[in-house]
């Protein structure tokens, strides 16, 4: 009995030890990014952990670089990149909500021919290699004048946001007992009032979480704005590559830009933790 409890405690300690190593691996790069973002140019190459922290890099990416000289790209456009990401991601989520919520409802509540095929088609966009769409779209967008426009990016982001919203919301609608609707129908309410006044409020938490997660994925997207956007709609993900390739001395600027552009996702993700697993698994796991 005595050795048993010692063994148990030892196993617990070993388990916590393994977890500690894993979490060090998972969190250290983020911590390091924050540290580098607080380093001045002089200390960047000379010190690892002990240095004089400065907010110079944050000031530089927002208000312009004091060191701008020959061959060094000024990166004070950062607020514009941030705004571009915000407009494109928000627009994409709003469009997806407008068209996706009714579609999710139809897929959850009605039995019609080709229902599963339709649902799978939406899902298949999530798994389609982006190049299949991007290569022809780069031609089509130039013909239609959508290249390097917000609408163009918002439209192609539907590949990211729409499947997520439709599948997650469908699972939330399916959770609601049809009895509620039938009772309301017997009372003589038309289907759209039932949908708007009864069902929508019931799925609202899930709806909000799914929308926020879709926002994060749109914000994080890189490949679509890389090819289909130019300088007008450049997002933070595309712009961040510029910091590392433009000059050696910009690692600390890049780190500051990374910190700023990662904060929204981490805050959003923490705020929807309870709904995160269902969102990440497209409704398959009801975490």
């Amino acid at each position, binding site marked *: 009995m005595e050795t048993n409890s010692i063994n148990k405690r030892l196993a*617990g300690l070993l388990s916590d030890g393994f977890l500690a190593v894993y979490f060090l691996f*998972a*969190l250290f790069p983020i911590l390091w990014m924050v540290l*580098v973002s607080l380093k001045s140019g002089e200390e960047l190459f000379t010190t690892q952990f002990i240095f004089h922290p400065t907010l110079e890099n944050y000031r530089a990416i927002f208000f312009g670089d004091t060191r701008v000289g020959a061959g060094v790209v000024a990166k004070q456009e950062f607020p514009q990149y941030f705004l571009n990401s915000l407009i494109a991601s928000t627009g994409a989520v709003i469009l997806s909500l407008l068209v996706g919520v*009714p579609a999710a409802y139809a897929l959850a509540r009605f039995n019609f021919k080709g229902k599963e095929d339709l649902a799978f088609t939406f899902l298949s966009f999530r*798994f*389609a*290699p982006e190049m*299949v769409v991007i290569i022809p779209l780069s031609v089509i967008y130039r013909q239609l004048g959508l290249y390097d426009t917000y609408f163009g990016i918002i439209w192609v982001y539907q590949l990211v946001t729409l499947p997520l919203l439709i599948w997650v919301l469908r699972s939330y609608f399916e959770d609601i007992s049809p009895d509620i609707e039938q009772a309301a129908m017997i009372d003589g309410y038309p289907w759209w009032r039932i949908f708007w006044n009864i069902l929508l409020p019931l799925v609202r938490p899930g709806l909000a979480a799914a929308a926020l997660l879709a926002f994060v994925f749109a914000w994080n997207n890189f490949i679509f704005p890389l090819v289909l956007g130019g300088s007008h709609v450049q997002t933070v993900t595309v712009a961040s590559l510029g910091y590392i390739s433009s000059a050696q001395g910009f690692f600390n600027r890049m780190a500051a830009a990374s910190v700023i552009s990662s904060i929204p996702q981490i805050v959003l993700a923490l705020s929807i933790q309870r709904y995160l697993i269902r969102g990440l698994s497209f409704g*398959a796991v009801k975490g």
Partner: protein
Amino acid sequence: MTEEKLQPPLGVRIRPWLIALPALIVLIGILYPFLTAIYYSFTAYALNRPGSLDQFVGFRNYVRMFTDDDFLYSTYITFAYALLSTGVELVLGLAVALLLNRESRFAKILTPTLIFPMMIAPVIGTLIWKMMMQPSVGILNPMLNLVGLPSLQWAAVPETALFSVVLVDVWMFTPFAALILTAGLRSFPSAPFEAARVDGASFWFTFRNLTLPMLTPFILIVVVFRLMDSLKMFDIIFAMTEGGPGRTLMTYQLTAYRTSFQFQRLAQGLPYAILLYIIIYITSFYLIKFWGRAQRRAAGY
């Protein structure tokens, strides 16, 4: 005749389609480029040659792809990347999930931070790692030296390039596997596990005969998402080396990108993307089917 009568009126039958109509319009807007992609792949379309869109060349682009000297290597690297990262993430994620699923205050504090690597944009996460691997400001080599290991050149040399990008993928997406599997473990009924404990079953016996079969649907979800995503991974490889050094990391997606945009031979890059789409579609179709079966089996049917 009676069947006709049982059918609901037309207005009711088309209602779901009407409700889904806005989404269908978006769907068409997305399907159109898919079809265009297939059409383009049969032409000689190149961005720097006007009029080449009308040059129909049949299967020439496909024949070129299959007979290209680098095609086999491209196939190898696409699958090596996908299978390695999915495999490691599954095993490591399972270990983390099992350890998190205990009565431990330590585990409870750490769980919320699990999502951080996954929520940062893949490009930015990769750039952080690239910085850490960098010879002058990087920290990984000093850390290796500290424990007596020699410095590595990471993604800069062919020998360790694949390892470097898989490492970033594992860092970024192991939390996904761990989260899904933790949710799976939490959803289990406690009765069979208590019975096993009362009967004095060993950890491995319980794991093999109870945990693993019940976890199979969740494992399959991880595999579907991670395998499909890593087969088409672009962001990590592009941000790290743009497919280099040389052709070391030229997967299907990277080859399609380089051929179509950097070399401007738009139609020639498409077969790689289309082939990848077919591979992903078939694999996901069977995996999802298998998932449905595993789910029913885990539920005891």
